[in-house]
């Protein structure tokens, strides 16, 4: 049973060849970008959603921060779509892999930090010391702020990985328990099935929320540094 639980997180292969790259590129097919003024319903809905999200997310940024609009919107679309597609049975979710999430978190976080140091060096260095700290606490607090800065990309990546992986594992476990309980006691199996339905609804929410949280945090780090 342990082997079966983690088998869904293995690199997807087709006839022995790893197709992880194809799986990662697949969600982009679902968001076509035609050059028409008036599109069909699907694309109009997608464009309306993107406009709604981008307006809400970019209000806090100044002009320098708004150059990241494309990156932030692509980020939330990618993470949201891969998480949602991963809820289909027998699918592979790239965001369950820590390597993938670190690959997203480290460049973006480093980008915001380097932006801050490049354009507002003094203000960026000043972030290491919160305002109004008493004098004897200053060395320790600088160390703590440095550690908290370097933990940001780790936290971004591990948060996304752990949430999505844990959700998928729970679905596997409870689904397996439901199947095993059918022969033993139908009522308990029904209750477990109800739990499974509720869990799946939760996973839908988690998929979207995690995408939002990731993008929001990157946007917050950007706001600090622009």
């Amino acid at each position, binding site marked *: 049973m342990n082997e079966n639980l983690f088998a869904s997180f293995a690199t997807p292969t087709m006839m022995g060849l790893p197709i992880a790259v194809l799986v990662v590129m697949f969600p982009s097919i679902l968001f076509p970008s035609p050059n028409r003024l008036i599109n069909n319903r699907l694309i109009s809905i997608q464009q309306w959603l993107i406009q709604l999200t981008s307006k809400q997310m970019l209000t806090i940024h100044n002009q320098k921060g708004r150059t990241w609009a494309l990156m932030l919107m692509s980020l939330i679309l990618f993470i949201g779509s891969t998480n949602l597609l991963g809820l289909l049975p027998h699918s592979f979710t790239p965001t369950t892999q820590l390597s993938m999430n670190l690959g997203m978190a480290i460049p973006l976080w*480093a980008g915001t930090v380097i932006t801050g140091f490049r354009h507002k060096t003094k203000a960026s260095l000043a972030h290491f010391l919160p305002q109004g700290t008493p004098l004897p606490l200053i060395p320790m607090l600088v160390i703590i702020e440095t550690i908290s800065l370097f933990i940001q990309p780790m936290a971004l990546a591990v948060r996304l990985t752990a949430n999505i992986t844990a959700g998928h594992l729970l679905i596997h476990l409870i689904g397996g328990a439901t199947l095993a309980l059918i022969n033993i006691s139908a009522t308990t199996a029904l209750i477990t099935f109800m739990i499974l339905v509720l869990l799946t609804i939760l996973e839908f929410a988690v998929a979207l929320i995690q995408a939002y949280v990731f993008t929001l945090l990157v946007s917050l780090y950007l706001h600090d540094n622009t």
Partner: protein
Amino acid sequence: MLQNLVKNVWVPMKPYYTQAYQEIWLGMGLMSLIVYKIRSADKRSKALKASSPAPAHGHH
């Protein structure tokens, strides 16, 4: 096909790739450095484990 790629991808994205994302490219360089360090350390430890035939903990 390359001309199509250039016309449809590079030309609209040129200000992003050349100006807006400079720091992200630097971040990607940092990430590739980290990946290289981790991979080489893993390779070194695997080579060490393979080259030393005696087991590390002995038999209890």
